[in-house]
């Protein structure tokens, strides 16, 4: 297929539309992200039941995850036997606590506890983030159509069918013979909007180490990171969490191998390998407290 020559465009368009639009979109995305961080509400204190369950689950995760690196075999075995019992005891405590709470709640005439009121607000936080994005999108689209219409902006390097002409060449309806590849500003806006998602994953990335550590510290204090739906647990959630404890107990019993071996076994032999000292008795059989043979063997050992 013959490659037609490209239309040469005015470099002012590049300087005043293409690159500024790109920069504005990047800045808007970063602004949205940082505003979201700044406007996040303070963490809420979790219920006692949630706190207990979370700390139990954390302990189990540590055991399953990396405990082999720093505990000896005997300690691992004893933990493996004790943890399921502890988890089950926690589950019973949580159930009793909930029953007591219900009984106390009934006594007080069925007052609404704090869990009910903030519910509508917590679910709205996620929606508000999306709303901000949509509003920003609409404003930008209107602004672009107002300021940057009526000229070709770029050429997409691949062929498009005639069906796309109407969509991508808004404001250029007079040019019926123009190749569909030449697009107007609004399609550049869409291209940037979708393409920058990958870019933002690099620029902003996963939650910074700081936020992760902050979340971990909050969890230890019993607070919960805000913005998660269902953080105010109702009775049904508590029951589910208690079931989770039971499941964890069962999992522990099944998952861990029967011989829960530590990485610390034989670690001296692995580290020293050939330099591992061979066994030699420095005390003669008849000696009790006298080590008169130590002086002779010391030089041999070293």
């Amino acid at each position: 297929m013959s490659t037609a020559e490209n239309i040469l465009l005015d470099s002012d368009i590049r300087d005043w539309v293409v690159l500024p639009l790109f920069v504005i979109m990047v800045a808007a995305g970063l602004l949205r992200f940082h505003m979201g961080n700044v406007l996040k509400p303070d963490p809420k204190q979790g219920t006692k039941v949630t706190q207990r369950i979370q700390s139990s689950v954390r302990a189990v995760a540590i055991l399953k995850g990396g405990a082999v690196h720093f505990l000896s075999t005997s300690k691992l075995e004893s933990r493996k036997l004790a943890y399921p019992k502890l988890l089950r005891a926690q589950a019973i405590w949580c159930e009793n606590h909930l029953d007591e709470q219900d009984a106390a709640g009934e006594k007080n005439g069925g007052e609404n506890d704090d869990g009910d009121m903030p519910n509508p607000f917590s679910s709205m936080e996620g929606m508000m983030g999306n709303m901000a994005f949509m509003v920003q999108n609409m404003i930008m689209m209107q602004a672009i159509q107002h300021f940057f219409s009526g000229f070709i902006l770029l050429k997409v390097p691949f062929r498009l069918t005639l069906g796309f002409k109407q969509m991508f060449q808004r404001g250029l309806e007079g040019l019926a013979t123009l190749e569909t590849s030449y697009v107007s500003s609004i399609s550049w806006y869409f291209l940037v909007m979708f393409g920058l998602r990958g870019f933002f994953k690099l620029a902003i990335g996963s939650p910074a180490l700081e936020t992760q550590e902050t979340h971990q510290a909050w969890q230890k204090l019993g607070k919960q990171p805000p913005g998660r739906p269902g953080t105010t647990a109702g009775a049904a959630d508590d029951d589910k969490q208690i079931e989770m404890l039971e499941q964890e107990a069962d999992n522990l019993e099944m998952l861990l191998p029967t011989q829960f071996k530590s990485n610390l076994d034989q670690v001296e032999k692995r580290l020293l390998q050939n330099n591992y000292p061979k066994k030699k008795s420095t005390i003669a059989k008849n000696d009790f407290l006298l080590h008169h043979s130590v002086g002779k063997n010391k030089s041999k050992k070293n």
Partner: protein
Amino acid sequence: MIDPMANLDAGVPGSSQSDEEKDIIDFMSLRYNLEKIDRMKSVMSIASGCLAGICGLTGLQGLVCFVALHFLVLVVVWTMKMKCSLHGYTRQSWWSYSTTNLQQSGLSFTLFWTLFYGLVYLY
């Protein structure tokens, strides 16, 4: 610091035997590895988009460039960092290893391809 591409099986000894089809792995290492792979794919898609735009590739040539570079990077990572053991470092099949986040990579590639093609050949 966790060694880049930490081997997932190194966490628990004897994890190669699966009891009742359950797998014991180090979740932190798995998550770390997957994040790193994601990052590499993002960078690769942006760089290959710039390359395709500057070289003036159009149409099918650009698509071939994207696919070829994408697989080249994945294979290089597999041989050099994972020591040819995909299962040991990411519990993924080859299909999901190749195609996770392909759409996002493709869109980034298209963006930078269009931008650099325009900057070099149109303006």
